[in-house]
Structure formats: structure tokens, C-alpha cells
């Protein structure tokens, strides 16, 4: 699969590494080239400096041929905007968006945007830990 990942933070870089190891064709997009240091050694995919809410940058990253797009920068709204560009402008089949704010995540899920709120999931994991 051809996959574009926007945001090369810890999660982005780890995800890129995992998918790359499975033989997928990965392009990672980040505003800061310094973030790419997080990519694992031997990463075979592409790393591009660019703004994921800019159509030209997304095109350069190969969004037009992409089967999946992940929006996992630190900003909820950047992720939401980029995901909707991927979904509605480039018709990417699978778009997955990280939204920290649980209420916002709920709303966008109901609007048909596949999204995950790490806040809810992590709080839940912590609670379960305590309960054993």
C-alpha cells in the first residue's frame, strides 16, 4: 500500500517504521526536518519537509496515489483540516486522524471522519491498570 503520514513525532515515526518494515510504500511529511531523526535506521520510505495542510505539499508526497493517509501532528485542527483535504479533495480511501480533544473527536467521527482520541484511550488504560 502507498501510505502518507503527516507528522513525524514519536507516534508518526514509530508508525512509519512499522509499516515500512511490512513492505509498504511510506512517505512521511513534517514541517521540521529535525523530526526525521526519529525515523528508524534503515527506513526505506520517503521523508519530505512540507505542510500537510497545503495541497501542493500533499501532492508532492504522492497523496493522489495514496491508499491511506494518517494525520498525526500535535494540532487537532491541523489534523482535521489535512484529513478533510485528503478525503474530500484527493478522495483517499482510508483517512485516519488523531484528535486529542474527546468532544471534537466524537463530533468528527459522527461526521464520518475516522478518528482516534488518545486522551480517552490512554485514560482508560490507566484506569484499567489500577483495577488490575
Amino acid at each position, binding site marked *: 500500500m502507498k501510505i502518507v503520514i503527516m507528522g513525524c513525532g514519536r507516534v508518526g515515526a514509530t508508525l512509519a517504521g512499522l509499516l515500512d518494515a511490512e513492505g509498504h510504500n511510506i512517505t512521511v511529511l513534517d514541517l521540521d526536518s529535525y523530526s526525521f531523526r526519529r525515523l528508524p535506521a534503515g527506513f526505506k520510505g520517503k521523508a519530505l519537509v512540507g505542510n500537510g*495542510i*497545503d495541497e501542493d505539499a500533499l501532492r508532492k508526497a504522492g497523496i493522489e496515489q495514496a491508499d491511506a493517509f494518517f494525520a498525526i501532528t500535535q494540532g487537532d485542527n491541523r489534523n482535521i483540516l489535512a484529513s478533510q483535504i485528503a478525503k474530500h479533495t484527493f478522495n483517499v480511501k482510508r483517512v485516519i486522524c488523531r484528535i486529542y480533544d474527546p*468532544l471534537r473527536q466524537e463530533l468528527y467521527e459522527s461526521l464520518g471522519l475516522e478518528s482516534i482520541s488518545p486522551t480517552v484511550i490512554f485514560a482508560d488504560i490507566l484506569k484499567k491498570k489500577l483495577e488490575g
Partner: protein
Amino acid sequence: MYIIVVGGGRVGYYLSKALLEEGHEVLVIEKSQAYCDIINEELGSICVRGDGCETSLLAEVGTARANMLIAVTGDDGDNLVSCQVAKHKFNVPRTIARIRNPRNEILFKKLGIDITISSTNVILEQITDVVPTHPVTHLHEIRDKGLEIVEVKIPQGAASVGKAIKDINFPAGTILTLIIRKAQKPVVPSPTTVIMAEDQIVAVIDPLMEGDVRKALRGMS
């Protein structure tokens, strides 16, 4: 009317001031305490500090009874989300977003934002006669029909030059209504009318197809 303005920077400040002067009830949501203080001091206590995308804050300020939400922060993503939350969570009848990147105009409309304002586009459209950079000038929008009337100028060397209209591949729904030619009376084109360089064409288009119309008329050969 009850109008919520998201973003209390310069645009938000002057916008709110004008709306207040017209007698509307205005509430500003602004992230920075310093900007909040300025507005509260100068325009009366109408500013709440917080994130205009957050559902809880929007509920607190009574977004459900707002007639309009105008998002004028400097960030396209923030403005989009504010408008979408207002529209889908609180059924605000009219949402307006300021846009920095003119490309986002089409996407925002597709996503149901009622009005988008891109200062870049406004300036480009104003200077289009002086500096012919902007390929498509938006003349009028027929909102409920999803149509737009635009003006397109044909550049030298475009692939459409010398072709009859019927031989050009337009997106469905495009109607060329008028051709304005130098030193000639404007003509209503027929399918056999041949396009010439420097023609100004007035057309009715589907705004979502603007890119394709531009390509058909202005694409280089």
C-alpha cells in the same frame, strides 16, 4: 442578531466593533488573555478567553442561540473547526470563515461553511485588471443553486485559442454566456464561436469544477 466572533486579533476587533455599532449582540472568543483584556476594556465586556473550537466553551456562551458564527483567527484549520462545530453541534444557521490559503475556499464550501473570505483572493480580484495574474475572477455566486458566475481571461498561447467552443472539453454544467473582445461589441457565443487570445469570457460554472474550467480555457498548449 446574536453573533459569535472567534478570534480577537485585529480583524476580530474591528469586526466586533462594527457589529456592535449596528446594534448586534456580539461575543468574542479569544485565546490570549492580553487580547481579551484589550477588547473588554475598549468594547465593553464582550470577550471570553478560550478556544473557539471547544464544544464546552461554545455551549457555555450560548452558541445554540447564535444566529451567526464568524471565525477570523489567522489559522485556516482553527477557523474550519470552529465553523464545523458551530454548524453540526449547535445548528448555527450561518457560519463564516476567514481563509489564508485561497485553495481552501473550495474545500470549505464543500464541507458546508456558508461563506468563506480569503483576503488573498479579494486582493487578487481587485488588481486583476492591473496585474493580470488571477486566472478566474468570481463575479457572483448563486448560492442555493450551487453555481457561480466567473470571468476568465484567455492568455496568449492557451490551448483553447483557435478552437471552437464545441471542441473544448468543459466540465458538465459549464455555460459560456458572453465573450468580450477588444474593439468589438460583446457577443453571446454559439458552439461554433472560436476562442481568441485576450478574450474575456463570462461563464456560469459549478464552483467545485473551477480548476477544470480554468484548465480547459487557460491551459497552455
